[in-house]
């Protein structure tokens, strides 16, 4: 298996594109024609060859460009990556988890050679060949979490588990849907979810926390979440809202299909063995609506979901003002025909 990595940008001239193959494997998040919150967690097991569920950490055509974008964001704002002192061991856990999974699942792209604590890591797409001592921070150019997450797509929150709660005590967050690690660092599960509407009343977080506290080694879980983004911006952070917030005003009936993107997060959860922490990778996939509607089922269903979404959710997800334009544009792709169950193209 070879991947042709795109030369593309997620800012400025926005040259990001999905190939037809990437469109077909896009993780469309709606199994039915309407949407409401649910915990919707399932075991993160290999499923459907070619899909984003096949491997532990999906690597796709955007890998190299996304890593360049991460380096650019970090250069401007180093606080996107933080790790409280007691989280270093969890960082090493993450190094081990990602390196062993990628070396096993993408042997043509990544290699890991272990000789006791002496590890050699080869990352071909990024041109890295490093030898270091496992658990010795001084042998890496960055802390362990920062080192490996500069080489892995998706944001990472590492959650310490204590007092029957989870605490956001470390993370690498440069591709976020409008939340801030620098603001949330040190908060517990209920504190960092405080802004989410409706879900508290529904008891979603109490049930979700109970599930998360019991996630076990060898039994990772996953779910999808979604929002919408103007332009293929990976970095829609509160810190940079002054740069991207105004772009929402640029949407017109003519440019909806090109400018508006469905943004889907593949969220996974792994128990980390040495630290007993949880790691929460949040992998962002973007697709512009023009590409999305090339799958007829998705065009029909997405129109119905956006049209019928409760106003609180459209507000929270940040597109309530643009909703009429989006619904109008999508309606052209909904002939009213029934849709098949599940998320996959027919």
């Amino acid at each position, binding site marked *: 298996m070879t991947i042709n990595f795109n030369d593309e940008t997620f800012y400025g001239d926005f040259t990001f594109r999905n190939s037809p193959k990437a469109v077909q494997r896009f993780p469309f998040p709606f199994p039915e024609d309407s949407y409401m919150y649910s915990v919707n967690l399932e075991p993160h097991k290999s499923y459907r060859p070619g899909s984003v569920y096949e491997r532990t950490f999906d690597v796709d055509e955007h890998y190299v460009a996304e890593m360049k974008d991460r380096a650019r964001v970090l250069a401007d704002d180093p606080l996107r990556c933080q790790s409280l002192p007691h*989280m270093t061991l969890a960082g090493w856990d993450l190094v081990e988890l990602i390196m062993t999974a990628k070396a096993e699942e993408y042997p043509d792209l990544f290699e890991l050679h272990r000789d006791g604590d002496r590890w050699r890591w080869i990352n071909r797409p990024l041109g890295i060949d490093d030898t270091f001592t496992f658990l010795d921070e001084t042998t890496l150019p960055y802390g362990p979490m920062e080192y490996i997450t500069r080489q892995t797509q998706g944001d990472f929150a590492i959650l310490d588990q204590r007092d029957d709660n989870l605490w956001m005590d470390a993370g690498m967050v440069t591709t976020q849907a409008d939340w801030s690690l620098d603001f949330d660092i040190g908060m517990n599960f209920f504190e960092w979810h405080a802004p989410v509407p409706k879900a508290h009343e529904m008891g979603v977080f109490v049930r979700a926390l109970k599930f998360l506290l019991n996630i076990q080694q060898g*039994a990772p879980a996953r779910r999808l979440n979604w929002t919408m983004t103007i332009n293929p911006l990976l970095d829609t952070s509160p810190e940079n809202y002054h740069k991207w917030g105004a772009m929402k005003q640029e949407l017109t009936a003519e440019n909806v299909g090109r400018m508006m993107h469905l943004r889907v997060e593949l969220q996974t959860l792994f128990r980390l063995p*040495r630290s007993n922490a949880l790691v929460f990778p949040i992998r962002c996939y973007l697709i512009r609506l023009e590409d999305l509607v090339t799958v007829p089922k998705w065009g029909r269903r997405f129109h119905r979901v956006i049209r019928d979404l409760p106003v609180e959710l459209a507000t929270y997800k940040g597109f309530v003002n643009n909703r009429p334009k989006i619904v109008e544009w999508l309606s052209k792709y909904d002939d009213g025909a029934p849709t098949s169950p599940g998320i996959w193209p027919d």
Partner: protein
Amino acid sequence: MSAGTEKIDVTVADVTPVNELVTRFRFVRSDGGPMPTFSGGAHTVVEMQDGGRTRLNPYSLMSDPADRSGFSISVRRDDAGRGGSLYMHTKVHQGMKMVVSNPVNLFSLDLRARKHLMIAGGIGITPFMAQIKQLTAMNGNFELHYAVRTAALATYADELHATHPTRVHIYHDDRGEAIKLERLLDGQPLGTHLYVCGPKGMIAWVRKSAEELGWPREAVHHEEFLAPASGKPFEVKLALSNKVIKVGENQSLLEAIEEAGVDAPYLCRGGACGQCETDVIGYDGKFLHNDHWLTDDQKSGGKKIMPCVSRFEGKTLVLDR
């Protein structure tokens, strides 16, 4: 998918008597691969095929968490117990194939602690064995106070004292030695976390003393696995699976549910973790709640039961399972 924990096929590599009551068992993977690493304080659930019956007992992992060649546990023989420890002592032999779960940690170190103060009683030493190995590798600051009945029954005391002479303190009951708890708790530096594992009375004593001395609740950690109590047999209707099952005298409700082929969730099997919490649809009789999970209101409410340790006496019990 099993509702409990992910399983590992293992072979018993060693059975080593430690003293009159305690035997150590070493498990290696039957496929020759490496065991998962784990965090100090974790346990594994050992499956025992005892006659026609499957027993699932949790035991703390005591080997070095970084050692991927195998897992070690130590089992204290309980002649009056329900039979799991006797099975381990009398039936398990070198070369035997068994199944254990992936590690689960309900007693982990708080890695923010500036110092880890550990108090162990009897076989409660086992989780500390792994934690001490983990802390030693990380240059962590710890101190162990370990109460034993006699020198002959002081499981691993010599080994611990020889490796960490200034950090390990042993107290022998038969010599009238006792942990001077109040003085010990009073003299700790800021940022110390307290851990206790041992008999029920010891855990209660340590937690109460810490509370009275103003220790923050978050800085006091304990591990208490209850063995399921025996009791009168009773009948249960499982509404979802449409089965009527009988819970035997020496069997837990959870074990009876599993024996009927119904997949029920669990983690600790000791009334602590909450995973097996089950809704009661109807009942006529009296609950014998033995868990640490449900609140007093929930226990008197008659709507929830923890089938791993709790029982029932009466005419009918219908569960949402």
